[in-house]
């Protein structure tokens, strides 16, 4: 090639690599691999693909510990999304991804484009998205900043999913101080595809054409996601702002239908979405996966702004774009379908056998990089973990230490993380697509009808960062078990797991320790549940000068169930018996109540996985048998909160006594009422049906019955006694606190 001038694209200065986030060592390595210094285009491309976000340089070694194989796995980590077999020739594709830093800067667009991005990962497999879930974390809901973030994020998620016609069927929202400046926005997408029509992202076939289609390429997010996702946010945020990406769900709706028609017509060799690092990453990874080379001519890319530099075109993160490899004879048909769907398209390059990534501008070479150097050349780092000796997060008191049990029960129901999120979920279209059997808030897991294979799936997403902060290993096991428990109450068995690891700066020993222990916990729980991890995402550097976020592994799980008509819900009836099932051994450690008392500290009690798994299986089978009307797992706020939520859902109270728990466990009266931990289920229904669950090797106790208009729970000398109405008022109190100062203007 003609040696391009290193100064031409505007980087030139020798230390530019530092501004782009590369270390001196990494820069030297690049020079060594290339045998020369990179020019501006090349440096921009390297800086993005060698960023944390694309190269996983601080997490890749650890991720290798996760179990990824199983009889139902169709696609595992390494593809745009994972996929599991659902029978009758169909697969379910799914993945969760973060958009934390973009949402901290611009919540509406950040969340919207987060949804758009995860949709494209599933679309890229050739799947049709059928559901979205979201897992959100904010600071306490008493600041203007939190109100602004919640308002924007919730509207952004709704805006994108609703406009696309993909139902948002579930999710979770926690409010904890460490997320105040650095909220978490994780979105999960679930799609369905014919297994034999799914496409991989690998480029193949020398001479095949590379087609870019979708939105025009503009200056959106230049240096955006990658830089934003790899550097701590600080006071200088404003400088990063002009690179905000804007989402256009209308464009993506057309793109989805267009991709579906292209695949149905068997017109594509491979398909890839454009996400972080834009063309550089999608074309580079396509070539890498296919062991090919690739030529891209930036002069052929349809632009929104005429005067863009080659490096800008190569790293632009304009949304709603896809890249396809197409046989030359099918190019015309592909472009015609794009025209039908009113979406821009162009042949921008070709697959080669050179093993290099060549960037041209109107035929002239402006950059040339070995694919291996770009995609796999980034050094992977070992972490230097060190367990912190103390609780490193602050914890303020929000409940009097002498509050009585009834007041505590109400305070827990009103606690932002526990309180009803209906005001948020009602902003999401949860029914479009005609598959939604159970949406968010109706059961612990959402259930979707899959008539294609004559069964249903259940999906859940979970991750209590506070408990993980107390003990990353145990806390992550619990998050995974909770997902499985949520599936069990609708009668579903896990098929596969996706996850998003949201952590602080891994170069800090304490964070490194959290990350390592959390991955160990995830691996152990998934292995025990025989639920392989088929995909995921890692989001590091979630910290601000105020410190890191709680370590927050968000676990997404997909399971299957034979008969959606036999799903247990939350509506119990007067006269039903109530049972507590499972090895639940409550403790205040890491609980919602301990947080409110300002007493959080290190450590969670160790609980074995096997008995929890047995309880999960027992509940699942009981629900499948159709005898159980009402089931929920015991989670945030303990048994009393779980009972209260059921009472609120049906408008009928209960009278219970936790004496059997006190007799069986070494816990205090307060632990029994409000303690948390894995392995507890509340079931309600006919006494004779419930009693069938006894004597099966899983702890089982009848604790009371459904009756009256009060929630009454006795535990030794303590008694909770609140009116269902009062409980409901507390439970529904969050909306007014959140929305007071928002006009909801941005569209």
């Amino acid at each position: 090639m003609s040696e391009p001038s290193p100064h031409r694209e505007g980087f030139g200065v020798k230390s530019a690599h530092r501004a782009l986030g590369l270390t001196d060592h990494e820069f030297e390595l690049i020079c060594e691999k290339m045998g020369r210094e990179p020019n501006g285009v090349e440096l921009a491309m390297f800086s993005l693909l060698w960023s944390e976000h694309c190269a996983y340089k601080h997490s890749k070694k650890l991720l290798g510990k996760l179990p990824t194989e199983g009889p139902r796995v169709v696609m595992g980590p390494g593809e745009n999304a994972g996929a599991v077999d659902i029978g009758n020739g169909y697969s379910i594709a799914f993945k969760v991804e973060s958009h934390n830093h973009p949402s901290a800067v611009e919540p509406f667009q950040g969340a919207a484009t987060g949804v758009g991005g995860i949709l494209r990962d599933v679309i890229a497999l050739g799947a049709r998205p059928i559901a979205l879930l979201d897992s959100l974390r904010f600071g306490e809901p008493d600041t203007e900043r939190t109100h602004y973030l919640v308002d924007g994020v919730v509207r952004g998620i709704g805006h994108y999913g609703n406009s696309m016609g993909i139902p948002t069927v579930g999710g979770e929202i926690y409010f904890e101080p460490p997320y105040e400046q650095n909220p978490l926005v994780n979105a999960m997408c679930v799609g369905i595809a014919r297994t034999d029509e799914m496409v991989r992202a690998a480029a193949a076939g020398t001479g095949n054409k590379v087609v870019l289609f979708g939105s025009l390429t503009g200056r959106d997010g230049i240096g955006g996601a990658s830089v934003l996702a790899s550097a701590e946010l600080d006071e200088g945020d404003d400088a990063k702002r002009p690179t905000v990406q804007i989402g256009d769900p209308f464009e993506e709706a057309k793109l989805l239908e267009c991709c579906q028609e292209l695949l149905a017509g068997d017109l594509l060799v491979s398909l890839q979405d454009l996400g972080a690092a834009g063309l550089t990453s999608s074309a580079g990874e396509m070539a890498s996966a296919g062991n090919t080379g690739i030529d891209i001519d930036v002069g052929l890319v349809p632009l929104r702004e005429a005067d863009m530099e080659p490096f800008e075109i190569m790293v632009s993160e304009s949304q709603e774009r896809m890249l396809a490899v197409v046989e030359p004879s099918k190019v015309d048909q592909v472009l015609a379908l794009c025209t039908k769907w009113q979406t821009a398209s162009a042949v921008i390059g070709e697959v080669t056998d050179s093993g290099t990534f060549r960037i041209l501008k109107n035929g002239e070479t402006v950059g040339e990089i070995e694919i291996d150097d770009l995609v796999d050349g980034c050094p992977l780092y070992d972490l230097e973990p060190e367990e912190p000796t103390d609780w490193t997060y602050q914890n303020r008191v929000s409940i009097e230490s002498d509050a009585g049990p009834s007041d505590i029960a109400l305070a827990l129901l009103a606690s932002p993380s526990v309180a009803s999120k209906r005001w948020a979920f009602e902003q999401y279209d949860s029914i479009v697509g005609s598959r939604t059997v159970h949406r968010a808030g109706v059961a612990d897991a959402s259930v979707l009808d899959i008539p294609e294979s004559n069964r249903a799936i259940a999906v859940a997403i979970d991750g209590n960062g506070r408990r993980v902060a107390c003990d990353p290993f145990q806390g992550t096991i619990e998050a995974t078990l909770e997902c499985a428990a949520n599936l069990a109450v609708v009668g579903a068995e896990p098929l596969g797991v996706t996850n998003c690891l949201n952590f602080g700066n891994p170069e800090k020993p304490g964070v490194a320790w959290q990350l390592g222990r959390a991955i160990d916990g995830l691996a152990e729980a998934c292995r025990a549940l025989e639920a392989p991890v088929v995909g995921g995402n890692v989001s590091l550097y979630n910290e601000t000068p105020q410190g890191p976020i709680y370590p927050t592994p968000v676990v997404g799980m997909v399971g299957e169930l034979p008969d959606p008509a036999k799903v247990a819900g939350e509506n119990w009836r007067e006269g039903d018996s109530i049972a507590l099932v499972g090895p639940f051994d409550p403790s205040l450690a890491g609980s919602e109540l301990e947080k409110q008392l300002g007493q959080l500290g290190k450590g969670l009690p160790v609980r074995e996985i096997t008995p929890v798994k047995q309880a999960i299986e027992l509940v699942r089978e009981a629900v499948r048998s159709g005898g159980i009307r009402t089931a929920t797992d015991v989670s945030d706020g303990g048994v009393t909160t779980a009972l209260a939520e059921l009472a609120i859902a049906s408008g009928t109270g209960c009278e219970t006594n936790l004496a059997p728990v006190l007799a069986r466990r070494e816990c205090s009266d307060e632990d029994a009422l409000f303690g948390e931990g894995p392995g507890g289920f509340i079931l309600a229904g006919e006494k004779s049906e419930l009693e069938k669950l006894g004597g099966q090797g899983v702890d089982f106790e009848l604790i009371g019955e459904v009756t009256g208009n009060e929630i009454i729970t006795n535990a030794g000398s303590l008694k909770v006694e609140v009116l269902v109405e009062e409980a409901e008022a507390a439970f529904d109190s969050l909306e007014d606190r959140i929305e007071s100062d928002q006009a909801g203007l941005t569209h």
Partner: protein
Amino acid sequence: MIQARVLIRPKEGILDAQGKAVEGALPALGFEGIEHVRVGRIVELQAESIDRLEELCEKLLANPLIEDYEIETITG
């Protein structure tokens, strides 16, 4: 070429939900003494001639049942 600006506002007497939402948010943000907030749309465009702008507004840019419009042009 003509540079045109079309201002589209909710008709007088129709509840302007967005305007009301802005007004509702003001006190909590500490803004006093602001009232009669109305939110509308602005469409800016370049047209070869002014002839059909009125028609464009009537047909597409505004819905005369609920919106008033006003065309401002700068011939360039």
